């Protein structure tokens, strides 16, 4: 069958449908004509493959079922959030009616029970939608488990809880092919690494957001991770790491480019802001180049968005106060057109290079 996850199977099914459409077009234009035996063999092979995938992974075979799947994905996501919220409020509502021992037993039972249920459901749910719901509830139960133990026993808040939550989120993400939980795990990991960086810098861990540079180690770790760990079996995972990595780098740079007083550096605030503005332009430019070069659309898009944000921020700083507003927005529009022309030229150069 050659597909170990639903995503892989769906990708293969999409490629088969594209192939079939292009083959029809080539035949109608007289470019290619397969012999009957060849056509029958290809069709039979594809039909068998799609049948196997549909049975094993409940994939979408055509546009109509894909549209329905999109609706199911949205419903699954909203349902997961709603169920997680329901568990949270259920605990809050009836919490004070239990003794301490009962509370601890309840928390542990909810965590373990929901995890085992998710594990059991995953084998029986080919589509993955119900598994996603169950996994979100299980993750919510574990988060509640640790945070409510902290409340009951008056434990001083610690960043180590973020590491435990991230671990469970990644376990669900990789075993159930759930990018939503991968994102949850990444957010917890960003929090943990940034808090640790802040602590090593001598500050209280909850104050790590006051120094945006604390986010840089997490950003580099996320961006480099897919380069060292093969994610071909998990389509979309590597892209998510890179997106979060770029956001974790460029958002703090944007903050520091406008508020130098929040930096660890003990220089004049204007100098710090100037340096980070340059870093912002260079970093987003490198992201654009890297995205084009390695054919990573998500890197290119994120780099482009931030390049434009940095550019427009500078325009605002230079011209907003004294320039007539119609002229200001005209310049923004012309800059966007110039940007499009540059990117188109880059694309053209890349295509020519490939053709050569």
């Amino acid at each position, binding site marked *: 069958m050659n597909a170990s996850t639903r995503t892989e199977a769906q990708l293969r099914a999409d490629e088969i449908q594209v192939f079939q459409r292009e083959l029809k077009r080539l035949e109608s234009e007289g470019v290619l004509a397969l012999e009957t035996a060849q056509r029958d063999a290809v069709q039979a092979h594809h039909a068998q493959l799609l049948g196997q995938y549909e049975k094993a992974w409940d994939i979408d075979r055509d546009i109509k079922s894909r549209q329905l799947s999109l609706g199911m994905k949205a419903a699954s996501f909203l349902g997961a959030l709603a169920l997680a919220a329901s568990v949270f409020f259920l605990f809050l509502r009836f919490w004070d009616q239990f003794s301490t021992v009962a509370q601890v037993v309840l928390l542990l039972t909810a965590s373990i029970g929901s*995890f085992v249920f998710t594990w059991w459901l995953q084998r029986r749910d080919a589509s993955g939608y119900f598994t996603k719901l169950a996994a979100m509830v299980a993750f919510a139960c574990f988060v509640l488990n640790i945070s409510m133990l902290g409340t009951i026993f*008056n434990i001083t808040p610690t960043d180590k809880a973020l590491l435990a939550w991230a671990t469970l989120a990644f*376990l669900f993400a990789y075993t159930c092919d759930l990018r939503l939980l991968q994102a949850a795990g990444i957010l917890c990991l960003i929090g943990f690494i940034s808090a640790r960086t802040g602590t090593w810098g001598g500050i209280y861990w909850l104050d790590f957001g006051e120094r945006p540079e604390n986010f840089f180690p997490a950003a580099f770790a996320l961006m480099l991770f897919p380069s060292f760990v093969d994610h071909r079996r998990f389509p979309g995972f590597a892209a998510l790491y890179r997106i979060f990595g770029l956001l974790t780098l460029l958002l703090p740079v944007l903050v520091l480019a406008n508020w130098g007083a929040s930096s660890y550096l003990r220089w004049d605030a204007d100098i710090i802001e100037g340096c980070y503005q340059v870093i912002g332009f260079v970093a987003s430019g490198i992201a654009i180049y890297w995205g084009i070069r390695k054919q990573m659309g998500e890197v290119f898009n994120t780099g482009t968005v931030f390049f434009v944000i940095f550019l427009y921020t500078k325009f605002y700083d230079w011209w907003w106060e004294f320039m007539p507003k119609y002229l200001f927005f005209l310049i923004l529009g012309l800059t966007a057109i110039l940007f499009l022309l540059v990117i188109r030229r880059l694309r053209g150069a890349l295509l020519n290079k490939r053709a050569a």
Partner: protein
Amino acid sequence: MMAWKRIHTLLAGLALIVLTNAVTLFGVAGNRNNIDSRVQLGAREVRLDRDYSFQGEDRSVTLEMKWRAPGATYSYESPDWLDEAKLRELGFDLPSLDREMKHIGWRPMQAKEVFIVLELNGPAYFEGLEQARAKVEREKAALEAAPEDAREQQSRNLEDALDRLKSEENELTRLLAVDAGLDDEALRAKYPNNKTYIMVRGTVQPAYLSYTDGGSYPQQWRGYLRITTVTNIYVPLQFRRVFQELLTSCPNALFWLPDPMVVEPGSELRRLMDTDTNSFDDIVRLQATVAFGKHHEPWLESLSIVPWIPPCSEPDCVAQAREQVREQARARCRR
């Protein structure tokens, strides 16, 4: 490398959940097996706090521990002892005020984790009380000596001083932050009395105070305290049961902890709560024994309610008033 199978997922997940809970609960046991301090907090130091967050869905009750700096009213005020010298002792690298601050300008400095010493009903509190009394005497003397056109202002000053004295004597918490340090063992050696001195975790944040409008405060570095140890202590069911039994047996009793929003209109408790001179805290007064463990995390060991006593000044009136209030409550319950 071994292929990852479904059973591995199950074992890994179960191990993670069990291990995380075990580490947490062992930490709690480790904290409670080594008591660092145990204090009796009175009605001025604690208040019951019902959390109305999440649209009122959170029904938990916590005991809020109130503390402040000596001479201050609120915990966010900077204590006098947390000056530039103390900040440098705590390891803050403060820029010199004259040259660097003019160059860099104001910018927030990072808070640092420290251990904070809280003193209960000790020398710092009595010193504050004496200062408040001395201020009243000074204002009285100033009023007597004040010319006609300054009497009104001086009279207001005396009134403020009297209010402050009344607050120090009757209302403000006697739990005061008196010291901070980086080594909890050294601090405990300095303050060995663990029935009066509590050690908690917290942070100190330096701030540069500069008044350029001709105010009376010079340019100076001051520190601000924040306690990170939980000070809203969870009240377990066995202590809440006391209030619930009273509520069930005698809804109009003055001894209960009701939700102020559901006290019956027309009841004696409602009347008292609506009177200007009485606050909810005056009516439901608490005494709590709170212990702090090895990790400086607290827990509640006992909780009792002290009935509200009407103000009186004659000898033995407190005992008599207490008995009167109890009798009134019993009479209401018998009806």
